[in-house]
């Protein structure tokens, strides 16, 4: 048997055969690692989920023409290509023109309705979203003025940008309520809009992107650089409040995590001190047998680091459950397992346990070997 295998045998025997004493220490490490793992999971997962949640409040990024003209489809595509596809929730281009219904003027908006539904999930639609040609959504204000209900037909008149008069029949698919200016609009598909107004560029492209403010700013810089003629704008009302909430949330979780780490260290150090005190006779015996301080340190540190490793593994398992409980009960949504956090938690647990063991291990080397002769 080599010295190394004897070393591991001694550590394993101390841990396995002294179950009750070591279970207390393992429990201390595992609880610390569980709370640590859980909070760090929350720290990383909840903000990304909440960003998705914030997308319910509408677009946070818009594209307009840099020169006051309409935005061409090619320009818009070049700008969208600068955005990370995985973070795009929806891209809804809009064209606006004034039209008349019963000789009363209203603003008509042509858009990709499927994308508009993604960028504006807060819209409350009575009736159905338009699917067939000739179906439109009308805002609540429009419905109130001209007394239309879902299923009602009406005739839209007006002049296109070239000055040609048009008249076309539409059917109300649904009435939209937003509590905002959208209630004064008539929304239709881009194809229906083009059928009365002809082809043309977009007045604005609304984008909903699941990214923090800093990343949105980076996207804006890329769009400015790569998509000539496109002026990107952050919807600061949304991005700033979103950033402020998430920053405060993360700061809170960070603070709690730091406190938990400190408490874990104190807890593990106290437990290891109790272990050292309990095994004072054994340490004295080993020193009486001629064990150098380095061996005593290596044995206790080895036990501590093994406990740290085991506690870390338990912490990963229970920590995910803990994070789920926080996610579901506090934030109302489940968290995702963060695979990268598993090794990080184990390493952190080993480091914290190692640090916490330093003082007790040092005190172990100060045990007088003569205690064994005094029968203590």
């Amino acid at each position, binding site marked *: *048997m080599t010295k190394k295998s004897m070393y591991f045998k*001694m550590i394993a025997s101390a841990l396995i*055969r002294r179950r009750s004493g070591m279970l207390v220490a393992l429990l201390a490490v595992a609880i610390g690692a569980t709370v640590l793992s859980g909070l760090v999971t929350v720290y990383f997962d909840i903000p990304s989920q909440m960003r998705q949640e914030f997308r319910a409040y509408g677009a946070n990024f818009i594209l307009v023409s840099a020169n006051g003209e309409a935005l061409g489809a090619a320009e818009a595509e070049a700008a969208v290509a600068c955005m990370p596809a995985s973070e795009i929730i929806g891209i809804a281009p809009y064209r606006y023109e004034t039209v008349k219904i019963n000789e009363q003027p209203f603003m008509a908006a042509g858009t990709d309705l499927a994308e508009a539904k993604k960028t504006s999930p807060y819209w409350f639609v009575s009736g159905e979203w338009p699917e067939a040609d000739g179906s439109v959504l009308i805002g609540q204000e429009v419905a109130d003025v001209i007394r239309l209900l879902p299923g009602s037909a009406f005739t839209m008149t007006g002049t296109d940008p070239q000055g040609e008069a048009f008249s076309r029949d539409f059917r109300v698919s649904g009435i939209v309520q937003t509590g905002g200016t959208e209630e004064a609009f008539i929304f239709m598909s881009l194809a229906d809009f083009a059928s009365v107004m002809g082809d043309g560029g977009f007045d604005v492209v609304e984008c909903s992107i699941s990214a923090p403010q800093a990343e949105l700013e980076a996207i804006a810089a890329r769009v400015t650089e790569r998509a000539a003629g496109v002026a990107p704008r952050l919807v600061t009302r949304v991005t700033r409040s979103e950033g402020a909430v998430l920053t405060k949330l993360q700061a809170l979780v960070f603070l709690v995590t730091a406190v938990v780490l400190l408490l874990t260290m104190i807890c593990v150090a106290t437990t290891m001190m109790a272990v050292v005190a309990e095994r004072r006779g054994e340490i004295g015996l*080993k020193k009486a047998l001629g064990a150098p301080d380095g061996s005593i340190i290596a044995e206790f540190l080895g036990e501590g680091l093994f406990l740290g490793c085991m506690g870390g593994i338990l912490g990963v398992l229970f920590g995910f459950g803990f994070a789920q409980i926080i996610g579901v009960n506090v934030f109302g949504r489940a968290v995702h397992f963060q695979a990268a956090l598993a090794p990080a938690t184990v390493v952190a647990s080993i480091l914290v346990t190692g640090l916490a063991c330093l003082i007790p291990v040092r005190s172990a080397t100060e045990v007088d*070997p003569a205690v*064994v002769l005094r029968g203590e």
Partner: protein
Amino acid sequence: MYLLDLQGVSKIYGSVKALQGIDLTVARGEWLAIMGPSGSGKTTMMNIIGCMDKPSEGKVLLGGVDISAESARNLTTVRREKIGLIFQQFHLINYLTALENVMVAQYYHSMPDEQEALQALARVGLSDRAKHLPAQLSGGEQQRVCIARALINYPMLVLADEPTGNLDEANEGIVIDIFRKLHDEGSTIIVVTHDPEVAEEAQRTVILEHGRIARIVENRKGGQEAKV
């Protein structure tokens, strides 16, 4: 040259003089007993001979080397290399088997050797108990494991503190037989004991009183008193 030579050794704790001017020599292969009432300085003398304490005054020469002024680190090395300790309370590591307890001494000394450790256990009649934990062994068996551990590194000096103090008569006999055998093989043994019957087995008995050597009895020569 004596194996152990104590020259004017004193140990003072504050105002308490635990040992005063001890002069004692132990020859290689000698079996010496140390007796005395509680507080006579036996444990202090054991600590000093066993390199677990240093004298306040005087010299301790082990194998001709003065160890009285050595650092704690060097004394640890001397204990590991030259001294085999046997304790009244056995002091086995409770989570290691009998075999592993013997191998621990090898581990700190040089290299663990399972076969050699098994032979050491066989020497004290415990080869069939090698895989048992201390809690599964009787007091006598635990003491024999302690003896096997003390002998595994072929120490220059075997130091036993009340080795039969916690044993019944039958086990006391077994342990004394092992000591006899060790002595016959040439080991140098110092035994601290309260038991006159155990002390009589030694060649000489040193009687301590109030930190001084009161007398030395030559047991093998009819219990004659030697000069103090």
